[in-house]
């Protein structure tokens, strides 16, 4: 608790590297960061566009009643894509139910992703293969898993870093606090990315926290804290990359808050008209993260019509693959319900399995 130099504190205004008109930001507002190279920016853009198309498709399928539920990240693509783009192959991602496009971008197939939302099984992909933990529903709990995994990697001498997503609402949970604190005390290689989309279902951030900004919490854990424009993919990418680098080099955890906005309803069964105005949502349409990056890339000549068409084609192909995935009728074996409860077989559970097998055979 003493003798060390003070960690970086969150800035007054959110760090921004590309403004809403697509212009590069320098000086105080950039807080010493510089926008990534055009190639990286284009890659971010491409993945954001593709992800948005995916979500539009999934949301449409949900409206048709073909998915049980789907929480969309529309408007939050900069946070989602910047984080997974910055992550290394050996790193681990700890996502929430909101962060489906992060999984997609990290390589999980549409069909594996939809398993959860379609209701086939809880987690439809192999966590170890993708180095992605199951999408967490119990809020903030996954942040602790990230700290534990990062600590294990550190103990084993591996350069692996864990990145945990959290919502603004989730920061109110005790588990978020314990995760931040354990990470700081253990100097775990973990990066917390708080997507402050300003709502926890219907509850606005003002009823969630009285802090100036959420990332000010970092101060109370003795860890670096960054307050970032969460609709600026360039800024999110740079700040997250630097944090991953620091973590990898033994510099411990970082808390990053991306200020963004949830454009859609919480899930398909939510009704946002009950708690926020159309005007507010309209306003945030004006801050769209994809539009901003497009302006920049068009102005700098990177995003040509050909490239735009190419990205559009990729997006459409994914949309089709997603529809196709929905048309697969996955064969679900009810008896598998008993297969993954314990590593060690239990006779009483086998009896229950046999019971169901008989019931299924008779019906």
């Amino acid at each position, binding site marked *: 608790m003493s003798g060390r130099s003070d960690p970086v504190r969150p800035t007054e205004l959110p760090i921004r590297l590309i403004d809403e008109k697509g212009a590069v930001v320098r000086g105080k507002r950039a807080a010493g960061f510089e926008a990534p190279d055009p190639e990286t920016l284009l890659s971010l853009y491409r993945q954001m566009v593709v992800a948005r198309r995916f979500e539009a498709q999934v949301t449409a399928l949900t409206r048709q009643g073909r998915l*049980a*539920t789907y929480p969309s990240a529309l408007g939050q693509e900069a946070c989602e894509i910047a984080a997974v783009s910055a992550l290394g192959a050996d790193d681990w991602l700890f996502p929430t*139910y909101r962060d489906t496009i992060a999984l997609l971008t990290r390589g999980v197939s549409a069909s594996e992703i939809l398993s*959860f*939302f*379609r*209701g*086939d*099984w*809880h987690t439809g992909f192999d966590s170890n293969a993708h180095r992605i933990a199951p999408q967490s*529903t*119990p*809020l903030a709990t996954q942040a602790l898993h990230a700290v534990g995994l990062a600590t294990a990697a550190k103990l084993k001498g591996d350069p692996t870093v864990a990145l945990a997503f959290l919502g603004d*609402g*989730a920061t*109110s*949970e*005790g*588990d978020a606090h314990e995760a931040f604190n354990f990470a700081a005390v253990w100097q775990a290689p973990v990066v917390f990315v708080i997507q402050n989309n300003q709502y*926890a*279902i*219907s*509850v606005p951030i003002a*009823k*969630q*926290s009285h802090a100036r900004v959420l990332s000010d919490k970092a101060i109370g854990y003795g860890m670096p804290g960054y307050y970032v424009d969460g609709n600026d993919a360039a800024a999110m990418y740079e700040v997250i990359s630097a944090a991953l680098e620091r973590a990898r080099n033994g510099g411990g955890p970082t808390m990053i808050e991306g200020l963004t906005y949830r454009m859609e309803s919480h899930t398909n*069964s*939510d*009704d946002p008209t*009950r*708690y926020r105005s159309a005007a507010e949502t309209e306003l945030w349409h004006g801050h769209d993260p994809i539009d901003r990056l497009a302006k920049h890339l068009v102005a700098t000549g990177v995003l040509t019509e050909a490239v735009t068409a190419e990205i559009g084609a990729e997006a459409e192909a994914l949309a089709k693959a997603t529809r196709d995935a929905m048309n697969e009728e996955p064969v*679900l074996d*009810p008896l598998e*319900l*008993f297969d993954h*409860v314990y590593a060690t077989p239990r006779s*009483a*559970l086998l009896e*229950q399995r046999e019971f*169901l097998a008989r*019931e*299924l055979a008779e*019906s």
Partner: protein
Amino acid sequence: MTLIEHRSAATTTAATQLTMAGALTAALHDAMADDPNVVIFGEDVGPLGGVFRVTDGLAREFGESRIWDSPLAEAGIVGTAIGMAMYGMRPVVELQFDAFSYPAFEQITSHLAKMRNRTKGHVQLPVVIRIPYAGGIGGVEHHSDSSEAYWTHTPGLTVVTPSNPADAYSMLREAIASDDPVIFLEPKSRYWVKDAVTLPVRTAPMNRAQVLREGIDVTLMAYGPTVKTALQSAELASVEGLDVEVIDLRSLSPFDDETVGASVRKTSRAAIIHEASQFGGYGAEVAARVTEREFFHLAAPILRIAGFDIPFPAPKLEEHHLPSPERVLAALDSWEW
């Protein structure tokens, strides 16, 4: 269910079609109107009216000093409710889904349940914790748990669960009026089922079980979401010539030994249905205590028709986990008659 309907509820004499959700809203409304110490808070209970709309309209009518959205933290919700109750309020808090009551487990078991005892009765905590529970609505993981056995094993808590709109209204009013902390379990799958109810309705006391259907061959116990299953099973059984008595337990803690005992002494056979996993589930207590008390009246072991000993399945597989009338019937048929 609109607020106009709530307000007229207290004077209405004609029965209206009411959902369980609507009945709960009416009960909250009337309790708030009757007692300024009744306050409501939790996640999304304000302007949104709760994810199941049970607090719909109350924020508009009673304002922010009576009902408000709390920060997102369940231990915080229960812990602050305890403090408010220490100051004479009667908080009614909502924990959004069953599995999201677990972060509040320490506050509930170590404080809420024990405070009266710890303080030799000096401090009482008239807190109601509403928890939407159980499956049957295609919820993703962590949204379909049946957590009743955790609470019923905790001395100091009263645990009740209604199965129909009239009971929902009456039992919630009684829970709010009780000086004991009450875990009020609301079966999600029954929220939207309607019944003709005249408000304000008072049904049997919340600590009593209710015989819903008389019969002489079998006592079939159920509660919350499985009451309907029990009634359907009884119908099916009657086709087979089996005369099933159906009991809605309503109160899980305390257990109504009297009502159940009387039935079992008549039928000499009993079964209990619940969604929660069988091992260590509430049915274990029911089977054990009824057997203890009525052993020599029993012609056969008490059967438990319950969820399997597995985590609650994903939506497409939950039907295999949940006790169906067919499964109940097969169980009854498994007895030697």
